[in-house]
């Protein structure tokens, strides 16, 4: 783990297998605890990171397990930033629709990014010729405090 003063970084890479997303779930749990997030916020981060990971594995890497998805957690004083990066070709954000509109409610696909945007404070994407990076931000709410009272001694040997 490393980072600027007051910022700590946890980084991991997983092969593109959906089964391995449970590892991310456990890491999110630990990181969210360090941020002092309440259960609802912890769930929101976990659900969103799993969705972003699913997108990377399914759409970015086409389930080619040897391709690695990188997940970087930045524990900042006021917010948690999670970046999920794959080496795929990205997608067209313009075609994304409101998944809760009556005409879309029974569609089987197209909810992943909607879920992330509903649960996180900020969601953005960066498309480059090297791949796609999804950036998720969850801010601390009033009353949620760094439970460690300072830089947290997280184990970065995941």
């Amino acid at each position, binding site marked *: 783990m490393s980072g600027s003063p007051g910022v700590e970084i946890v980084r991991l890479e997983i092969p593109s297998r959906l089964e391995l997303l449970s590892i991310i779930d456990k890491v999110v749990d630990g990181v969210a605890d360090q941020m002092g997030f309440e259960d609802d916020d912890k769930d929101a981060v976990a*659900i969103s990171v799993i969705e972003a990971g699913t997108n990377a594995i399914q759409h970015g890497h086409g389930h080619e397990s040897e391709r690695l998805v990188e997940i970087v957690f930045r524990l900042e004083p006021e917010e948690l930033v999670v970046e999920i990066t794959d080496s795929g070709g990205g997608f067209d954000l313009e075609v994304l629709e409101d998944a809760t509109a009556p005409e879309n*409610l029974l569609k089987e696909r197209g909810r992943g990014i909607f879920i992330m945007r*509903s649960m996180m404070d900020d969601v953005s994407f960066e498309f480059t010729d090297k791949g796609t990076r999804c950036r998720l931000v969850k801010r601390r709410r009033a009353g949620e405090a760094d439970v460690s009272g300072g830089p947290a001694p997280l184990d970065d040997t995941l």
Partner: protein
Amino acid sequence: MTRRDDGDVSILTLSGRLMGGPDTEQFLKQIRDLIDSKRSRVIVDMGDVAWVNSSGLGALIAGWTLLKEKGGSLKLIRVSRRIEQILAVTKLNTVFEIHPDEASARAGFGG
């Protein structure tokens, strides 16, 4: 996944995750098998499901739609807080009938 038939109601007990892999294919195959056997009242027990993602939601919707087209229905029971949160944010809690337990879901089928 396990299946138990009790009268005209079938109970599918899922476990682990429903995330767009073989788990979801198996779930939909089971729904199609039930329809082929003329069984269209289905309770899906989610109590042991740790994770559902948007692909898993898609499978639940596909199953709900298949059964509804045959005049049947699919009800969810024992849904975790986390999965309830996903259903709420996607408004799918307005589509799926959600019950705390099997008895309550069975009562919902009526005669």
